[in-house]
């Protein structure tokens, strides 16, 4: 069930490389642990982000989760449909529920991410 066309990090974000952009979202596991998502605070386009830095917040009724940028770069685009329909992340975490896109990537950073098999293994260690 974990798409093999992308990479992962241990804070449960996925990264899909599309040309010179990286599309970023949260995994099915992450959306499931949050529950009904009610609000997404999206980052501003053109903001510079660093690897591991907090760049947006996803809220459910009982929890709020920081989204950590898996890569350094600059915010190229955000999924503004999430402002009105944050539940898209619950319904389609890997497709329609993508959160933001990054440009100005560092390819060395991309190579160091987990692939789907490694993430699947990592999930077994999570409760």
């Amino acid at each position: 069930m974990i798409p093999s066309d992308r990479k992962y990090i241990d804070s449960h974000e996925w990264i899909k490389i599309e040309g010179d952009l990286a599309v970023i979202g949260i995994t099915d596991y992450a959306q499931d642990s949050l529950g009904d998502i009610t609000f997404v605070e999206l980052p501003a386009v053109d903001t510079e982000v660093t690897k591991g830095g907090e760049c947006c917040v996803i809220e459910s009724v009982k929890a709020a989760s920081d989204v950590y940028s898996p890569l350094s770069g600059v915010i190229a685009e955000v999924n503004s449909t999430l402002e009105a329909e944050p539940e898209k992340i619950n319904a389609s975490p890997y497709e329609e529920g993508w959160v933001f896109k990054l440009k100005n990537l560092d390819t060395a950073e991309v190579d160091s991410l987990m692939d789907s098999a490694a993430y699947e293994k990592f999930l077994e260690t999570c409760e």
Partner: protein
Amino acid sequence: MSYIANTANEQKEMLKACGLSSIDALFEDIPERLKPKSFNIPHGKSELEVSATIEKMASRNYSHLTSFLGGGFYDHFIPAAIDALASRGEFYTAYTPYQPELSQGTLQSIYEYQTDICRLTGMEVSNASVYDGGTALYEACQMAINATGRNRIIIDGGVNPIYRKMIHTHTLNLSIELCEVAVTHGQGDREKIFEALNKDTAAMIVQNPNFFGVIDDHSDIVNKCHSMGILVIQSTYPVALALIKTPGEIGADIATGDGQSLGIPLSFGGPYLGFMATRKKLARKMPGRISGLTMDTQGREGFVLTLQAREQHIRREKATSNICTNQALCALRANIYLSLLGKEGLKETARLCLNKALYMKERLKAIPNIKVYEDLPVFNEFVIRLPMDAGELAGMMIDRGFAAGFPLGRYYPGMENYLLVAVTEKRTKHDIDLFAETLEDALCQ
């Protein structure tokens, strides 16, 4: 008297059920070395004895003075129904409505309070209240900083000096730059304010009526601030809002103030009620509890605490604020007060304040050697200049049965001869006439 129901026999039975031989066994986790070095507290007394002690203490307070003391905290009339309703144990002895099914009374009252505050201030959303008006103002600064990503706050010198001191303390350890702009001629100095605004400025704080009682139209400040992406926070006096331009009407982004004047006794400084209201787009940046309408499993309407993901039990160190409760009982009092007074009653109260204050102003103006400071439009409070130290005069008036007002020298160096005088609907023409005569007499001595 310790209000414990269980008898010694029942305690024994319970210990036995726990498999313990004595009360001491319950405390065996506390080692000998950690036992109290002393516990020198007087013996307990009966309700009758303690009542006598406390009544004697109450009689040592000068609560009988005819008071013209305001400074942001006012002696307004409190209808008896407020005490009768707010002291019902179902409200009084409940806690934060964590279990909405058992707390629809508190939750609905908060929702109605939020609505009242919005209707009074002309804003779109309100929280369930914070500790007091000063805390509300500090929390509004934090909101503005979070919303703009900037860290400079400009404060008009007409903002209550106690609130300015509170903001100063609360921001001491944070990278926030505070800049105060002194008042000239009793009003916010537009030239100096506009000069202080820059691209790092998160918010401009103004107060209406200001600490000198002067009413203003801050629309020009709002326009200028908004053109630079700066938020405007207006601290205000809820009774005055029945008559004066509201924060909503001037386009302010956050309205705050103390709700003490809405049916809450002065009680020597608290508990009071800090209200906060804002625009819809800033709702998620607002700290504190908020009650919202929703549906139950059977499609019936009901209320819950909502937007909790902003709060510290979920966000911990990243929360919008560390405040985890509201002044629910004070908010309930304000809700009952505004329901009893209603649309006409609040307006009539405000008109009485306004007319009596203006009558007082004319009476004092007529006294030789007294000048009204910067004779500007006011609501129920104004400043006079005396031919002597205002503190000394206030002392002389206490001997004559009056709390004459607040001497400004304490917070405004150079204004030692100035006195801030407030009049509420509780003062009669007779009180005012007698005060004016006594004051004139005192000045002659």
